[in-house]
């Protein structure tokens, strides 16, 4: 008979470590840490089966502050380390914490391959559009013209769009939120519920080097510019007065006005999280002309990499006895009397 160990219900504070948190006062990372610590009890996670793996950068200090197993690795390589962690023990719940420089610049290759392979994990990309820990150089997500110590006359290269990169890499779950959003816990819960690589971009305000870069939609006065997507619900924003519709001639999205709540008449699209084509359009909507799409943009699971590896290991091993003596004695042999 199996003994059932009762699962101890945890509280957010059970996920805090005794380490002093070393982010700048007012950094958006604090809010994200709190949101993650609030998420853990809600998903029924256990500290010993949870592993946080990070790279290098401000965001990557995250594991030190989570009362779980944790591995603060080297710049850009968290996805690769996490792949080994998960393949060696698929029972572990693996969270990757990375930043825009870590995940898209030095570690872009690993991010792409982790997503295409579909390792079962949560990938949290804290995007503050700047290199914080090295004191403010522009990053691969910085907007054109960003003035920084390394680009005193403004950056001239075009930024990457993390969610578009993720979709292009084959991600089966893509979501977006921002550091202080009250919806972040729900987004994280959805990411955890997704079996496979769940990519979450979290806009994070670097108050020292890139303050208020997201104010255009995070400031209280601007929050009508947030489009929160919900599966099966119309794509409405600005208090339900505007929506996203399809321009059938141009085959692009367009913003439409919604009169008297009649979104159907306005042609507003109902969000289907499994519609990959629409997801591509949602992540590419230029902010300004369009609102910022948030929440779960895309969620359509496929078999996981770790599952496939384990299944193949088991399938090709079944019925075979691992006899080392036999292994080294095979091939064309001869005996000396």
């Amino acid at each position, binding site marked *: 008979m199996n003994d059932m160990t009762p699962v101890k219900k945890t509280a957010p504070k059970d996920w805090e470590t005794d380490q002093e948190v070393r982010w700048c006062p007012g950094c958006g990372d604090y809010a994200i840490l709190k949101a993650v610590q609030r998420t853990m009890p809600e998903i029924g996670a256990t500290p010993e*089966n949870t592993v946080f*793996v990070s790279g290098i950068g401000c965001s990557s200090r995250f594991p*030190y502050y989570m009362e779980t197993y944790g591995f603060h690795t080297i710049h850009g390589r968290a996805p690769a*380390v996490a792949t080994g962690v998960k393949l060696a*023990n698929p029972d572990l719940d693996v969270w990757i914490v990375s930043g825009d420089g870590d995940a898209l610049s030095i570690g872009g290759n690993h991010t792409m391959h982790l997503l295409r392979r579909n390792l079962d994990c949560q990938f949290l990309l804290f995007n503050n559009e700047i290199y914080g820990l090295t004191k403010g150089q522009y990053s691969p997500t910085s907007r054109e013209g960003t003035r920084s110590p390394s680009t005193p006359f403004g950056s001239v290269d075009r930024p990457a769009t993390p969610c578009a990169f993720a979709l292009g890499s084959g991600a089966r779950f893509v979501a977006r939120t921002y550091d202080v959003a009250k919806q972040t816990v729900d987004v994280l819960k959805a990411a955890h519920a997704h079996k496979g690589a769940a990519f979450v971009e979290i806009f994070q305000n670097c108050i020292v080097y890139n303050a208020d870069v997201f104010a255009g939609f995070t400031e209280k006065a601007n929050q009508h510019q947030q489009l929160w997507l919900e599966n099966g619900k119309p794509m409405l924003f600005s208090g339900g007065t505007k929506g996203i519709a399809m321009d059938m001639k141009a085959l692009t999205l367009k913003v439409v006005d919604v009169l008297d709540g009649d979104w159907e008449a306005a042609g507003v699209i109902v969000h289907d999280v499994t519609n990959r084509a629409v997801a591509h359009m949602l992540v590419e909507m230029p902010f300004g002309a369009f609102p910022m799409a948030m929440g779960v943009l895309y969620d359509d699971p496929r078999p996981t990499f770790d599952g496939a590896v384990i299944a193949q290991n088991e399938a090709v091993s079944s019925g075979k006895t691992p006899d080392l*003596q036999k292994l*080294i004695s095979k091939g*064309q042999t*001869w005996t*000396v009397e």
Partner: protein
Amino acid sequence: MATAARVDAPENHSAPVNSEAVVVRFAGDSGDGMQLTGGQFTLSSALAGNDFATFPDFPAEIRAPLGTLFGVSAFQINFGSTEIDTAGDAPDVLVVMNPAALKTNVKDLKPGGLIIADSGEFTARNLAKAEYDANPLEDDSLGKWQLISFNISQLTMDAVKPFGLGNKEALRCKNMWTLGLALWMFDRDRQPIIDWLNEKFAKNQVLADANIAALNAGHAYGETAEIGQSGAHIPQRHVDPASAEPGLYRTITGADAVAYGLVAGCQLAGVKMFFGGYPITPASSILHALSRLKEFGVTTFQAEDEIAAIASAIGASYSGQLGVTSSSGPGIALKTEAIGLAVMTELPLVIVNSQRGGPSTGLPTKTEQSDLYQSVYGRNGDTPLPVIAARSPSDVFDCAIEAVRIATQFMTPVILLTDGYIANAAEPWKVPDMSTYKPFPVTFLDHVPEGGFKPYSRDNKLARPWVKPGTPGLLHRIGGIEKQVDTGHINYSPENHQLMTDIRKGKVDGIADHIPDQDVCLGAAGGKLAMVGWGSTFGPVHQAVRRARAKGLDVSHIHLRHIWPMPRNLGDLLKSFDKVIVPEMNTGQLKTVLRDQYLVDAKPLNKVSGQPFRIAEIQAAIEEALA
């Protein structure tokens, strides 16, 4: 007539001449199947009971343009009735499939050696590609050797005609025709090769039959052909079996031996293996071999790059399996930052480096020993780790077990050095009895010890505990930032960094107490001259010392397996010799380390041509030093 043959040095048809040892080199276009021919000839030597050593030498290009000088692929085997340690200095017999193969190889042939050439390939076009102004088979330029040439291409076409193959496919049987001839020349049994062909072409019986027909035709040609005006026969030689310890033998390449040794090491340690690899010449064959051994608890992962290969292995080690990665010099360079992480986080890890010619991309298919500095010193910070070097294909098996033992017992990354020669070469291997190996089981910490859990606490070997994530009560965080003594918390303080640096150094230095003393593999433990080698120079150094000692010279051979830390007695041992010479295939790397460690006047003997040392080169150095 197309099959007309020509012979310059007639010999009478008689019983096979007995030889103690023979060196044969097969050389042809990289598409001619010379490696396969050599491999099967090796097998036949093994089954004939000869001792042997081989040296495959092939271009980096998979199918280099036909007939070119840089596209020549060669396979040399030295087989004999006495102990064979090297692939031989100079071939006695050279088989060439085209003019380019003749041009690039004939200068190595012993004076008076035998050339067998496929005259059918000595066309004007191929001669031009090989930069010959005149056909060397038809002038006196090969006068100092014996030459037998006949149209192997045509003879092969004739032999496989009944099977209705296309021209191209038919000509691909040429290598089996050649092998058949070689089997006759050395008085060998064809049956094992026929069995192998039937197995290899089990899904295409026509190809199997055609290849067997070619093999038989080559053999019959050797037996019956009367060549030249004189009606002479092709000379036949017989090499008696070598005396060897009783037991079960097989041939083994270094790549297979690494794979088997790693599996054996993990069984002795009681851990599963995770292998993260990325394709690179000449290391890929280890990934190939391990990917077929899943039933031994091996997971293989072909990563997106060298960095991900090692990073995933480190992740797996953190999770409680033994992470292993493998590459060659350029790939090891990419892994360097991650090796530092493994040193800092004190996780077990085995890094196999099949060295090749450098720097940069260098000579991908040629052998060199120039990554010793990279292994011992090549990281940022004070980042010590153990380094082990294998001397031969069969020696790698035990070295891989040793690497696993040290990695798991001391919680440290270990570098295992082999090279392109060891990886590709084959030699006879007395299959070891695994029950004679002492297990070294790892212990995972699974409970909170008395006094509380400290992830950077130490045992008497200074190793920290290995904890599997998933274990309740032992939650902890590790990373590349400097660790506080015991707790593993982030700590940048000067005192702590000094202490942790000392601990990391002390741990690796202390491994010297857990490895065997250095032995002298030939000669006395003191005297006039020590030849100190490491890695795949073993064969030529050993034979050179043997020959010099046979001439009465006072010279000993010392061969290092443990490059770092070095055996405790090594300094005293070296100082018991008047002179120390270090032959190595680099510009003097071990020599420098020995000088640094022991203040001994070690003299370098270097070769960096991409080719192994010749016995004669080392013997000359010995004789010069003792003159």
